[in-house]
């Protein structure tokens, strides 16, 4: 019987293709808007490194005055809490001396000017970090190697690891290992090539104007010699007398992560941080923190900054828009089914039960849903491409993955089903005698 309903529904849709297209379009546009906006949230909420992890982000809560100053809202991007997330270079180098964590890494990303070995200047993203960053964030090193841990804070280090995709841009298909590049007057030799999976890193730390790609990875200590300018600096004004060198090291711009697999390590780390905060406070620096926080990595992704709030709101709006589109479909279906009342009455006379009429019309609504889903997903993928182009400063590439395509399809069918319920119920509950013309 389902085959018959399908056949009749197809026939009905073919009878007025323009109207059928209109119905599908109404649903498709509503779904397209929703699923594309939803994908931006889902893309950001997806954990690029799922699974339990013992990685913690070290945060020092400050009395920066920013939350009070920026009001409750703290700006659309939740900027007011940034000072708590970023440590100074000095703090990271002091804390990284601790033997408590199994591994640790400091890092910040910025935009640098690089002189390639053919003399060309290119701008590109750079991450100044510890060698253990690759292991902690599971970024595979495809060829060559990273640097020794002893170079992490060595101002005279002269090695770099390059991101695979970035290397393609800079060096074409030739092997980047052994190539020399210059940054800020310092020459470094590329020792390794890292796999391109930027989401792993960029979801877990803040990038400001860094292009949101991985580029060069350099030992953190190099900035002492190179004095490359971080894109984002939280200045604490701990530099009376304008000591420029001191200033760069005391402003906040570095993330610091520690790996603490055991409970004992975690408690020891908390004790260490407490005493560290106390020492800082005694020093009387403006940057002296109030209290430390050890934040689990997945908690960071969820809570540490509210980058998603704006996206979530637009998602909520587009969901309401989807409901409005469904209502549009309800009315279009009602009109369409109403036109068919005489035919339905003939069918009823010929023995179609109310259930049969109801099911046939639900099948028709579902067919509209299938068409709407196909057009809607096509439209959504165009929208997602447009979002990627329109929002260059984003933490992840927005994409419709298989799960979202499937759930988009499911949601569209569900919408079509709900939109069809009332019109189908109405048409099937008309007594056949009402529209049956005897004469």
């Amino acid at each position, binding site marked *: 019987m389902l085959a018959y309903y399908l056949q009749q529904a197809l026939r009905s849709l073919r009878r007025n293709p323009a109207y059928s297209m209109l119905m599908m379009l109404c649903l498709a546009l509503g779904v397209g808007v929703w699923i594309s906006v939803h994908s931006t949230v889902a893309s950001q909420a997806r954990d690029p490194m799922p699974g339990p992890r013992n990685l913690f982000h070290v945060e020092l809560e400050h009395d920066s005055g920013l939350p009070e100053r920026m009001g409750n809202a703290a700006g659309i991007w939740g900027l007011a809490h940034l000072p708590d997330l970023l440590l100074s270079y000095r703090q990271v180098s002091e804390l990284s001396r601790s033997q408590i964590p199994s591994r640790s890494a400091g890092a910040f990303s910025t935009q640098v000017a690089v002189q390639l070995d053919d003399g060309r200047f290119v701008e590109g993203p750079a991450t100044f970090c510890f060698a253990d960053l690759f292991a902690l964030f599971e970024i595979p090193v495809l060829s060559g190697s990273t640097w020794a841990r002893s170079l992490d804070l060595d101002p005279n280090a002269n090695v770099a690891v390059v991101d695979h995709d970035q290397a393609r841009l800079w060096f074409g298909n030739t092997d980047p290992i052994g190539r020399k590049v210059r940054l800020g007057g310092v020459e470094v030799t590329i020792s390794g090539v890292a796999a391109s999976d930027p989401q792993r890193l960029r979801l877990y730390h803040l990038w400001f104007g860094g292009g949101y790609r991985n580029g060069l990875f350099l030992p953190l200590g190099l900035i002492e010699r190179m004095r490359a300018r971080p894109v984002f600096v939280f200045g604490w004004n701990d530099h009376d007398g304008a000591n420029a060198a001191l200033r760069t090291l005391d402003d906040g711009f570095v993330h610091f992560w520690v790996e603490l697999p055991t409970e004992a390590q975690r408690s020891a780390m908390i004790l260490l941080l407490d005493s560290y905060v106390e020492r800082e406070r005694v020093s009387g620096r403006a940057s002296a923190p109030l209290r430390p926080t050890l934040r689990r990595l997945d908690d960071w992704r969820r809570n540490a900054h509210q980058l998603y709030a704006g996206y979530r709101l637009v998602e909520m709006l587009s969901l309401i828009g989807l409901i409005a589109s469904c209502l549009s479909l309800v009315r279009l279906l009602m009109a369409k089914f109403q036109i068919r009342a005489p035919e339905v009455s003939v069918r009823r006379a*010929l023995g179609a039960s109310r*259930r049969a009429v109801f099911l046939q019309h639900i099948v028709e609504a579902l067919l509209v849903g299938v068409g709407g889903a196909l057009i809607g997903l096509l439209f959504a993928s165009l929208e997602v491409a447009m979002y990627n182009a329109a929002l260059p400063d984003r933490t992840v590439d927005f994409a419709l993955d298989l799960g979202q395509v499937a759930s988009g399809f499911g949601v569209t069918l569900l919408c079509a089903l709900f939109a069809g319920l009332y019109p189908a119920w109405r048409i099937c509950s008309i007594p056949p005698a009402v529209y049956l013309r005897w004469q």
Partner: protein
Amino acid sequence: MIRMTGIKKVYTSGVLAMEALADLSLHVGKGEFVAIMGPSGSGKTTFLNIAGLLDSFDGGDYLLDDIDVRGLGDDEQSRLRNQKIGFVFQSFNLIPDLDVFDNLDVPLRYRGLHGAERRRRIEHALEQVGLTARSRHLPSQLSGGQQQRVAIARALVGEPKLILADEPTGNLDSVMARQIMELLQKINQQGTTIVMVTHAAELAARAHRKLHILDGKVIDPQARPRRAAEAI
């Protein structure tokens, strides 16, 4: 085949109530060909709707083929319509964008017959009305008489015990009208009960007996089936 006793039907629209059938009683025996006559607004269409289980009624009893239809659910009523009744309308009521074959297919589909059986029955019904060659034509490609033969074939295809017809020749010229009446008589002779509503006395004359409806009542309910049959 049809035994109605004291059927009542009231249409209400706002505060106005109109009694379409008032205490209508009639009996149509198996294998009969009964003509029902009456002026416009006498309740003929309401009678057909109720007899065909297309509309509910507000009082009285109705036995269709010895089945008490009062209180039957929609599913049972639909099944009865599907299996026991064939409809022939003055306006044919063919589904315009289904071809002849598919129009005949409709009642068989709702009966849930499988493909081969449906095909056999459809071909047989088309043969009976002489339209085998037209099975893939759309109704709009057929003449009025051909359309009515398709409609009759559609009524026949389910092998019903009862055919309800309303002015089956009303939209046709006299030659075609005669053909249709002959077809109906043939069907009746094969054992199908026919109840036909008409204005035309010459059509009614072909029935076994005539009943008159006026103001929602059969005015000659005593007319015995047997006697009417003898009248021919």
